[in-house]
């Protein structure tokens, strides 16, 4: 089914429930109990990352001199995830054909075809692709094809990540298309 995830930036409180749900959904056992045992293989496709509280808090970077400060100054949390772009730069860059945009509009990844060249990482302007270093391939959001509501959306208790499904999405796309001529 066609679906689309929308993020309401203001609503994310950085609880990271979505990350855990995503990792579990994509873990071999797909079970909550074994998630810890699986974690090596269970990488989340969505990342909660933070902006800086204040840009001036950024540690001074002194290249080549002394030890750089690495303390993290936390600020507002933002979910970073794949947008299944209309003109996906990652697909354009993928030289093995592992990444394709399917008929439903989802940008999907075939781990068997991936050679770990990181061309897609170089191309995605949102940094939405992660490396799975154990297997030397990438992982990315697949919009949970096996379920109607993606796992991250189901897990989000604040309504920061919402999903639009099927017909409603068609209608929305039509109105967008009409709007832009």
């Amino acid at each position, binding site marked *: 089914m066609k679906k*689309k*995830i*929308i*993020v*309401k*930036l*203001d*609503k994310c409180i950085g609880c990271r429930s979505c990350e855990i749900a995503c990792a579990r959904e994509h873990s071999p056992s797909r079970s909550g109990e074994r998630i810890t045992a699986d974690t090596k293989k269970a990488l989340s496709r969505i*990342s909660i*990352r*933070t*902006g*800086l509280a204040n*840009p001036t808090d*950024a*540690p*001074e*970077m002194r*290249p*080549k001199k002394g030890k*750089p400060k*690495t303390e*993290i100054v936390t*600020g*507002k*949390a*933002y979910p*970073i995830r794949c*947008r299944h772009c209309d003109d996906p*730069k990652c697909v*354009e*860059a*993928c*030289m*093995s*054909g592992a990444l394709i945009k399917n008929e439903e509009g989802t940008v999907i990844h075939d781990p*068997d*075809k991936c*050679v*770990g*060249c*990181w*061309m*897609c*990482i*170089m*191309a*995605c*302007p*949102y*940094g*939405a*692709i*992660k*490396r799975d*270093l154990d297997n*030397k391939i990438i992982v990315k959001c697949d919009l949970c094809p096996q379920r109607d509501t993606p796992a991250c959306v189901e897990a989000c208790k604040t*309504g920061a990540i919402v999903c639009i499904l099927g017909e409603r999405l068609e209608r929305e796309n039509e109105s967008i298309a009409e709007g832009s001529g």
Partner: protein
Amino acid sequence: MRASQRGLVEMNLDAQYKYVIIGNSAAGIGCVEGIRKVDKEGSIAIISDEKMHTYSRCLTSYYIAGVVDDEKILFRPKDYYAKKKVTPILGRKVVKIFPNDNHVVLDDGARIGYSSLMIATGASPVIYDIPGNNKQGVFVLRTYEDARRISEAAVPGKRAVVMGGGLVGLKAADALHAKGVEVWVIVTSPQIMSQTMDREGAEILRKQLEENGIKVMTETNVEEIIGNKKVEAVRLSTGQTLTCDIVIFAKGVRPNIGLAKDAGIETDYGILVDTHMKTNIPNIYAAGDVAEAKDFITGERYIHAIWPNAVEQGCIAGKNMAGCDVEYAGGIAMNSVDLFGLASIAIGFTRPRGKDHGYEIIGRSIPEKKFYRKIVLKDGVIVGAICIGEVEAAGVFAGLIKRRANVSKIKDILLREDFDYAKVLGEGLIEDTSDFATA
């Protein structure tokens, strides 16, 4: 279009198509996809002098190493042509283009008519004029056939000299090494990856190669290939001779412009195209390694011979061929190489020299982690970036380059290991409303 098609019928052609594409690789397939986004039915023929289905030449080194096979080297599925309603004409070379009456002639004499034509003939490796360059054991790496031949020669215990320390040379060296071949990389410049990487980055990559058993010699040339019929050794500019069985020329490529030139299409180093990927002849387009198209940073015409550019240019040309009006923003050099698990990505203008004024360079290196990052700025806008070790943010830099976003106020943040798109959002650096909504 009707009129020209009527004209073609009268000429008694063997076949005619709305779109004819010469080249079955990145730019050619990008073109198919561009056309099909706009025109689901118009007839398309794709012609290639190679017999293979859509194989990826970037995977040829992986093929040598045995990481991909005849199936996985394809970058589109087997039923691709049928699904996209494309007629493949494979194993046939185009020998002439007749732009005045809209047809091409193949090596078997067939005449194929078109309403619009795409030239995506790519480039060919250069074999330099040195004594012995035709001996058995001398190879180039560009095609599937090249890869097959090298793969046969790459038997454990053999020794190889790779001439050239660019992407192709290093990928070839890596593949040969994986096959148990002892490898020397001989580079004319003072560093490897001299087209894209800066000195410091190149030094890290060189160390990585050497630590893993690949020998690198910079500021050295191969002056002669010695041997009876077969390669036995090479003589270097240092006077030294290196015993070897395999020599690979990986010192650059030249665009395949012959066909276009003969047809009176404007060429310089490559085929000259405008921002719609159109040549000086209105219904003939060119894209990919053969096309000299706009450079994003300088605005001048240049060839960035890389896969993503070829796909994007092909796609834009295809959309324009199908009647859209899509402009090319320009190409940016970018490269990604993973050497023995060390990832490195270089994007844009990474090496301003002394004579280039007005650039600001910031950088940071953590040697024990093999982390290196460098950002080149001009008037507060990123024009180049290098990421080694930690590469996840590379695409974010590419995005900022393309948006010409002013990053002055977060310059230091760019060098943090944890730099990511959240920092861009957090600092309100760019307006990003796509897929976002406020509560």
